Each structure stands twice: as structure tokens, then as C-alpha cells.
């Protein structure tokens, strides 16, 4: 999630590579599914073969091994080519070079439209994946669709919740905020009482920003067909979010420690940062890497704007997709089906501490009733699995989301650095997004 300028350079190079290579790649887009069917998957599993799977999921290696055990004819080469941006750079290069890519790849929901719309991924509809809808939460099921196609099966989900340091809250007499106005009030109270403490850290993170806009009801990105894009970062929902967040940013009530740095992990441990608004995968991070604060953290539903019916958004999460480049799309699709739909695989995933997207696992009493010692015995999954059913629908990411996020820092990110108006920052981001989209051959409208 941290994106440094170095990443931007690499991404810029990768995209220039992509442009250059588009000229010389052999245009091998012909493969995929004339005869795709559910039967083809079982036939492919019987026949066997070798597929390559790129992923940085912690349980990926173990899941691949479990699959090989169940289907001895199949050999899965698990490769971790990097996390996030590094992974996409490698993937994009392989796609444009026309070779060297995996058969199956992990792709985060935010990046899926980009790879689906550039026609790099196999539409899995023909394989009977459309019948699996009931197995997944509504929001993740929506996330694996682009246009009318299904481009993967959800691996995990990240419904957002509010994680707060109970010790700090108690010490300064702060109640758990129900609304965002309460949250701002809590921020003021905390920082006034102890100027070294902040309600949150936000150094300007595009993934975090878009998820909070999502919760507020903003729908800034729309894509019709595969070329018509609308960018509107001034819609009502977005403004609702900036109205709250401006108070925090302009009022210097949030610190700007960059996420995922050692400084950030440290600040989560020593109470400098009192709350984290993040996806349901956050407890894993805290338990694993913020051991100093064991017993201090707790989780609550995300604050709302009106104090009414709870509503939340997805923050992070990935799917597995099949590349058109694959020589064996049937086998690759069969692997994806097993990976994110077979209980043997899901159990390995859950064992590693992942937060599932499958309704059966979310609703199982064993999962819901898990009482976490790290969270002082709180049944955190009650809050988190409930949140998974309260995700606001209809969100879309841009078909060039990855690039969009790299330029977030030069535009909207500046508002965080200078403690200035976020609306102006988002407008600057929008201008750049419109210009870039048009350069890339999209037809971009401003809402």
C-alpha cells in the first residue's frame, strides 16, 4: 500500500514498456474458451499438466501443495514475484511481452478492471462460475465482475471496521465514535489532551481514500463498455467524506506517518496512533506485527454519517484470475475453482489467518465466536462478519487504477503534506486522471 516515488518510476517504466511492447507483441489474444464448460474443468484435472501460479498470499505455497496432493497429475509451480506493485509490474511486462506470464495470478480487486479490460484475462463465465454466486459475499462477488464477465473467484474480503486502542480511549475518557462527527470530536479531545497522540495516521493513501469515499456513497469512477470512462471526484458522496476528513487534515488532527513503515508499526504499538480504519485483515497485522500492544486493541463498526443503519466499504482483497496467455486455461480455471471454492483449500487459507469471502465460512459459528486474546477476548469476527454484509454496492475502480494511484501523491497527496483542502487536491487528481485516460485511448468524461 505504501507507494514511494521509486515505485512510481518503476511503474512509469513498466507502462512505457507496455506501450513499446504493444507494438512488437505477437498479439496472441485468440486463445480462451470456445469450448469452455464445467465438464472441461474436470477433464483437465484428470488429464493433468503443469501450471504456474503467481501470488503473494501467505498461504499460497501451502495451498498449491495441497492441490497437488489431491490431484497428483497436476503440477503447480507457485511463484511469488513480489507484493502489490512489484507483482503488477512483472505481470504487465509478461502480458505485453506475450510470454513468460503465469497461468493463474493473484490480482487485487482494485486492479482487476485494468487487466480485464485490456483483455489479458479469461472470462470464466463459460466454466459455470456464474453458478457460484451464493458462495460469496455480495460485495466480493461484485468485485470479480467487470462488465458482464467473471474474471476470477474471490479469495478474501476486507470489509472496513474501526480498530481502536481501548487503553488510550479509556485513559482520555473517549467514547467509541458512532458517527464521523463523533470521530472528529474524539480526535480533537485526544490531541488536545496529549499533543503527541493522534486519532489516526493518514499520509495520503489512495486505497484508503477511495474506500472511505466508497463508504460515504461516492461513486467517482464509472466505466461503460471498455472505453467510456467517467471520473467525478466532486460527487455528493465524495464531498461528504472530504467535509469530515478536511477537519482532520486541515486541523492537523491526524499524523502523517506512512503506512507499513517501521515507524507506523511502532506508532500502532505505543499508542501514538489511537485508531486504524481498515479492512477485516487488520487483526492479522496487529497480532503478527504489533505485539507490543497485545490486549489493548478493540474493534467497532465503522462510524457512519448519520448514526443510522451501519454501512461500510471494502478495503483491499484479492481474486485469482486466469491469463489469456495460458496454454492450459481449462486446467488453470479448475485450479482457481479449487483454490477459492474447495473447503480443503479454504481451510488452509483460514488457518493462515486470512479473512474469507465465502459466506459459509463467515457464518460458521466457529469463525464468528472466535475470541481473540490479542483483542482482550473480544469476539472480533462478530463485528467483522457483520460488516461483510453491510458493504455499500455499486463501486467501481478505474481501468487504469494502478497508475492512478501512483499519481495520487503528486496531486491529492499534497493536501495531506500541506494540510490544505482535500477537495482541491482531489480535483487536481481528477484533472490528471482525465488527461492520462484520454492519452491512453479512453474517452474520459468529467461527471
Amino acid at each position, binding site marked *: *500500500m*505504501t507507494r514511494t516515488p521509486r515505485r512510481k518510476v*518503476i511503474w512509469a*517504466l513498466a507502462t*512505457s*514498456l507496455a506501450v*513499446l*511492447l504493444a507494438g*512488437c507483441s505477437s498479439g496472441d489474444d485468440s486463445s480462451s474458451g470456445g469450448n469452455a464448460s464445467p465438464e472441461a474443468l474436470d477433464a483437465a484435472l484428470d488429464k493433468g499438466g503443469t501450471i504456474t501460479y503467481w501470488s*503473494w*498470499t*501467505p498461504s499460497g505455497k501451502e495451498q498449491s501443495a495441497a492441490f497437488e496432493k489431491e490431484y497428483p497429475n497436476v503440477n503447480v509451480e507457485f*511463484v*511469488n*514475484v*513480489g*507484493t*502489490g506493485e*512489484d507483482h503488477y*509490474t*512483472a505481470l504487465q*511486462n*509478461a502480458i505485453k*511481452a506475450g*510470454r*513468460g506470464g503465469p497461468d493463474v495470478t493473484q490480482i487485487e480487486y482494485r486492479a482487476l478492471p485494468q487487466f480485464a479490460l485490456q483483455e489479458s484475462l479469461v472470462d470464466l463465465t463459460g466454466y459455470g462460475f456464474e453458478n457460484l454466486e451464493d458462495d460469496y459475499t455480495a460485495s466480493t462477488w461484485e468485485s470479480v465482475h467487470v462488465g458482464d464477465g467473471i474474471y476470477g473467484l474471490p479469495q*478474501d474480503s*476486507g470489509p472496513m471496521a474501526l480498530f481502536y486502542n481501548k487503553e488510550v480511549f479509556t485513559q482520555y475518557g473517549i467514547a467509541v465514535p458512532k458517527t464521523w462527527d463523533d470521530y472528529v470530536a474524539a480526535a480533537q479531545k485526544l490531541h488536545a489532551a496529549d499533543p503527541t497522540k493522534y486519532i489516526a495516521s493518514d499520509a495520503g493513501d489512495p486505497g484508503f481514500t477511495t474506500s472511505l469515499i466508497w463508504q460515504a456513497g461516492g461513486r467517482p469512477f464509472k466505466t461503460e463498455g471498455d472505453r467510456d470512462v467517467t471520473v467525478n471526484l466532486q460527487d455528493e458522496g465524495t464531498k461528504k467524506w472530504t467535509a469530515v476528513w478536511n477537519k482532520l487534515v486541515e486541523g492537523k488532527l491526524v499524523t502523517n506517518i506512512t*503506512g*507499513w513503515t*517501521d515507524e507506523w*508499526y*511502532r506508532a500502532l*504499538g*505505543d499508542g501514538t496512533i489511537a485508531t486504524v480504519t481498515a*479492512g477485516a*485483515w487488520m487483526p*492479522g*497485522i496487529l497480532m*503478527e*506485527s*504489533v*505485539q*507490543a500492544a497485545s490486549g489493548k486493541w478493540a474493534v467497532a463498526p465503522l462510524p457512519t454519517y448519520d448514526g443510522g443503519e451501519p454501512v461500510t466499504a471494502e478495503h*483491499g*482483497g*484479492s481474486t485469482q484470475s486466469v491469463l489469456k496467455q495460458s496454454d492450459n486455461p481449462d486446467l488453470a480455471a479448475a485450479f482457481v475453482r479449487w483454490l477459492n471454492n474447495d473447503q480443503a483449500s479454504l481451510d488452509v487459507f483460514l488457518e493462515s489467518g*486470512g479473512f474469507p469471502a465465502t459466506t459459509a465460512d463467515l457464518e460458521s459459528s466457529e469463525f464468528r465466536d472466535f475470541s481473540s486474546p490479542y483483542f482482550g477476548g473480544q469476539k472480533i469476527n462478530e463485528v467483522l462478519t457483520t460488516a461483510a454484509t453491510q458493504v455499500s454496492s455499486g463501486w467501481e475502480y478505474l481501468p487504469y487504477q494502478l497508475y492512478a494511484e501512483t499519481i495520487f501523491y503528486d496531486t491529492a497527496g499534497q493536501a495531506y503534506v500541506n494540510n490544505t483542502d482535500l477537495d482541491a487536491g482531489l480535483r487536481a487528481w481528477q484533472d490528471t486522471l482525465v488527461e492520462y485516460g484520454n492519452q491512453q485511448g479512453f474517452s474520459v468524461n468529467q461527471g
Partner: protein
Amino acid sequence: MARKAAHGGLMAGKSKVLTAVASLYLVYTLVPLVWLVINATKSQAALFDSPGLWFGGSFALFANIAETFTYDDGIFLRWLGNTLLYVVAGAGGATLLATAAGYGLAKYRFAGRRAVFAVILGAIAIPGTALAVPTFLMFSAMGLTNTPWAVITPSLVSPFGLYLIWVYAADAVPDELIESARIDGAGEIRIFFSVALRLLVPGIVTVALFAVVSTWNNYFLPLIMINEPRWYPLTVGLNQWSGQGRGAGAEPIYHLVITGSLLTIIPLVAAFLLLQRFWQSGLSAGSVKQ
């Protein structure tokens, strides 16, 4: 304090400003190293709850080293082996080629020599990073990406090393010596290996040192050429470990990244300490010759 030393000799003068600047620079250079050594002794948890520039938690250096070598089925050892391969083949080859070519250009007169000179000077001016993308395209078309050749082959070319040897050979290997060797009946190959090579040793060591350092630290080229961790050098591998600490499902292993970095620089430091004797003696050996 005798500021003016014995007449005639160089004075052992002291400038307060220069001393201050040099001390600052020393601190600037050493602090990251000190930080690295101190933090390599901490466990992952202690990294986040102890002061950055002092020890904290229990002393975990040896546990960290053991874990670095065994994590993910000992992939670190594989990366170390890859880096050694790239250095031996890449930097070794680069030194050999630069020496032969530099000597040839310095000592033989042939048509197009000036053109070669211009091309080499031009090549020095282009940073390797700028060539990485075209190189990637070329290697991709040849199907060589994701193989060790993709890293070794570009490392074989060192225009700067060639230029250095060229300039050095012009002075260090007297034409008269080559002439007399020829009169004695030695062939050109034999002259190169038996006569010139020995005189060129200080230059070769310098070029080798530069080549070793740049290949050992090479990051960008392998980053775009190689996707598969089994061919990563240490630099790219450590970056992958560091990247593990981000995002949903993050598994930070910063203690291994830090310990791994420390282990990565040790061979380089050793190479410098071992080779610098040749280097210094060579630099001064040339300087008083007429």
C-alpha cells in the same frame, strides 16, 4: 602546536572547517552502518518497541542469521549463490574484456580508433538505468528474460573500465617494452599475457573492484529482467522480503531484511579491504615514474 612543519616538506596543517566537514561526512557515512549492525541484533518485535540507534530486547543476532538462511527453504542462500554467479561471470568477464580491449586500443594503431573512442566516451555518459528498458525489449525478443544470461550479458560491458585501462595502459606499458619483446620473438598474445598484464595489475584491480561493486549492488537490471525468485540476486530478493510487510495479509520480516542486508554487505567490505592494497600501491607506483 607546530602548524608549520619542517621547511620544504608538506605541512601537517589542520583546518578546523575541513575537519568539521570531514567529521560530519564520517558521521553521515557511518550512522546507517551502525544502525544496521545494531538492528540486526533485534527480533522482529523488538525492532518496533526499542530505540532505533540503541540495542533493545534480547540479543537475537545469531537467531536472526540462522533464520535468514533457513527462511522459505533457504532461499537466501540461493540468492547469495546467484549474486556470486553474476559477480564472478559478469564482473570477471567485464574486467577481462575491458583489459583486453583497453590495452588493444592504447597500443595498436588502426583505422576507426577515434570512432571507437567517441563511442566509448558516449557510452560512459549514458546511465545504465536508461538502457535497461531497451535491453529488456531486446532480451525479451530473444527469449532470454528470466535466465541468468539476462543479468550477466549486460554486465559484461563496462565502457568506464575499458576507458580506465586504456588510459592506464598508455602510460603503464611502455611502447619500448613491447618493441623489445617483439624483437625477442614474442607473439602479440604472449606479450599481452606475459608482459602487459603484469604491468596493468593495479589498473585491473581498480576496474575489477568497480565492476564487482556495481554487479553486487545491481538492482534495477535484475528487477526488470527476472521474475522468478530462484534467479534473484540478493538485492532484489531482499526488496521482495521487505515488500512482504505491506498490505492485506502482510507478513513483515524486517528483522530478516536487516540481517540479510548486513550479511550482503560483508563480502563487499571484505573485497575492499583485501583489494585496496593493490589499488593504493598501484596508484602511487605510477605517480613518480618519469
